[in-house]
């Protein structure tokens, strides 16, 4: 789907000087995987906290030949994904897709597509809180020194204490990782289920935090390991016994619905593009939407 772009603004909205500033930060980020590069974050027509970091990356790297996919919560059709996609197409005129396999550039909030990414693809993730150490230290001046000295003991201590108190690590999505045994990094609020997709991926991952004015990156084939203790391994969200009510997929991340008629729960692929593609290829739920108790 190609749209005609607005004549009132520059290609991809930002002026070329701003794009260069952001691309320089991206290059530095790629050169030091997992390191947070401060950058002169620009104000955009969408809200701070609504994906301006990811969007600035998209706008800085996009060219007329790109094919764009925008997702929020896994869905191409959610309101914020639409709003961002409409904005980017309005100021670039690029082609868009819902098929992650066809996209050259994917901007996402909270999910990494289920279908494995390929070499040459760029994934721009929106980041609300880029600093993993913010969980244990509020001051930026301190956390920068902690990264420099690789002083990650306070974070590990907090995880240990969480296990001692509750028997488990009390972290949900946005579960921190170690990059190449050097930098501790927030993967953006993707579910733990998606963390492994970062490890040794052939695609380039770019992370943008607009409000916090930080950019970081994982170049292709980077080692990314979720924080865990030897005897307390990293665990992803359980998908056990669940299948998508539409396409029958198992072992994917699900949206959950309550069936008010039966009181049971229903599940559906969170990645709407993936689900759609499976159904186009003929996949169906084996049992017709049987609610599980």
């Amino acid at each position, binding site marked *: 789907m190609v749209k005609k772009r607005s004549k009132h*603004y520059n290609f991809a*909205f*930002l*002026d070329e000087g*701003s794009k260069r500033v952001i691309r320089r930060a991206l290059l530095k980020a790629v050169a030091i995987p997992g390191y947070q590069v*401060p*950058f002169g*974050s620009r*104000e*955009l*027509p969408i*809200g*701070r*906290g*609504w994906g301006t970091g990811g969007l600035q990356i998209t706008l800085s790297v996009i060219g007329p030949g790109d094919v764009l996919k925008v997702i*929020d*919560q896994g*869905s191409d*059709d*959610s*309101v914020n*994904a*639409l709003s961002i996609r409409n904005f980017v197409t309005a100021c670039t005129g690029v082609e868009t897709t819902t098929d992650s396999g066809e996209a050259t550039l994917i901007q996402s909030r*909270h999910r990494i597509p289920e279908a494995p990414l390929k070499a040459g693809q760029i994934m721009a993730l929106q980041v*609300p*809180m880029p600093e993993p150490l913010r*969980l244990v*230290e509020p*001051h*930026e*001046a301190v956390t920068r020194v902690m990264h420099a000295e690789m002083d990650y003991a*306070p974070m590990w201590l*907090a995880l240990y*204490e*969480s296990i001692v108190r*509750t028997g*488990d690590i*009390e*972290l*949900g*999505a*946005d*579960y921190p990782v170690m990059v190449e045994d050097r930098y501790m990094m927030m993967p953006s*609020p*993707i*579910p733990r*289920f998606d963390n492994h997709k970062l490890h040794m991926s052939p695609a380039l991952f770019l992370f943008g935090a607009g*409000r916090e*004015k930080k950019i970081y990156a994982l170049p292709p084939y980077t080692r990314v390991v979720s924080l865990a203790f030897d005897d307390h391994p990293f665990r992803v*969200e359980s998908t056990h016994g669940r299948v998508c009510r539409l396409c029958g997929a198992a072992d994917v*991340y699900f949206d*959950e*619905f*309550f*069936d*008010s008629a039966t009181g049971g729960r*229903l599940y*559906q692929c*969170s990645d709407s593009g993936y689900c759609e593609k499976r159904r186009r290829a003929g996949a169906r739920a084996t049992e017709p*939407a049987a609610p599980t108790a």
Partner: protein
Amino acid sequence: MAYVAVTGGREAVKNAAVLLERNRAAGDGDVGLDALEKRLGLLIDRVMSEAGLYAPRCAALALRQSEGSPEEAVFLLRAYRSTLTRAYKSLPLDCEDMTLHRRISAAFKDIPGGQFLGATYDYTHRLLDFEPPEARAGGGGGGELSHEAPVRAPRVTRELRREGLIAEKDGGGAEPRDITMDPLSFPAERSARLQTLTRADTGFLSGLAYAGIRGFGPSHPTVGELRTGELEVLLVHPLFEGETISAGVIVVTEVEALFSEESAEAKREARDDPLLRMEAGQGDKADKSSAGLSLGMGYGLVLGRNDTKAIAMSVMDYFLSSPGDGILQNQEFVLLHGDCLEMNGFISHLKLPHYVTFQSKLDRVRRGSPEGTGSAGSNGNESGSLPEL
């Protein structure tokens, strides 16, 4: 099917736009841009100040487009400014050159050049007026003035400076950092602090300064001088050496607030006394009787007319320049949380769907407490919470 997953985002976004358009077009007749700009001047000033962009007509456009929401209007101006190339830097402005509209001092009764209230609500009675302006006494023009403002006047603090009573703050003369191009880093230099404060949300800044003066800050201010007036913005001529070009005239409000503090010598002694640092409370305290007091100054300067914000800025400038561990002296706390766009953007993003992260939280809670009685932690981070160190 009892529950249908939310789809049709396309329709929803389109319908929201239609409804907004109805609000904007409600009632009889358009809101004239000229009236907006001239008669809602204080609102225009506030929007320009928080946007960091002096453009009254654009601010009027933005307010008309946003049903009068100042934060939406600030947002529009900031986003518009992102697309503009910056071609020039102005020469430094000196507020002593100001063509005065208003000038008061709370420190001295009689000041060289005199005090002049100018257009202020300070001494009006806030009685809701049911008549249109044209129907009021004086026929809309407001009647005759008995005094004119002094055109120019030296700052009140000039005399105090000459006496050597004012402890100058750091950062004078250095090339300022442009926080819109180069993000804040900590500790932030004074130029970066002042820029951040002058663009801060009016309510945020006033609230912090109020809390500080009530007792959560180190000191109580006296407004040495508050002045509002016009300044001409000049650029170096790109071709003819030694010549300048006028870029136009802006209205600003400047405040110099005075605080009594230990003199520089006294502070140095306290800081350098290693016995005090080394064995806190055990060593002999240095004898400070000779050191005495001096005046500390906080500086406020905001675009347009906004007395409260300018005073609050001067108070916060002083707090941030004073040594101490109070929360209002903590640079990261004060400077990172007062930007209109950032605070409103982040708070409002909570309205976005968080299905994925909430599922992840639910997974933790259900696993941790089979009865579903656990609580999903939250400390502003999608991860949830960890024990606090």
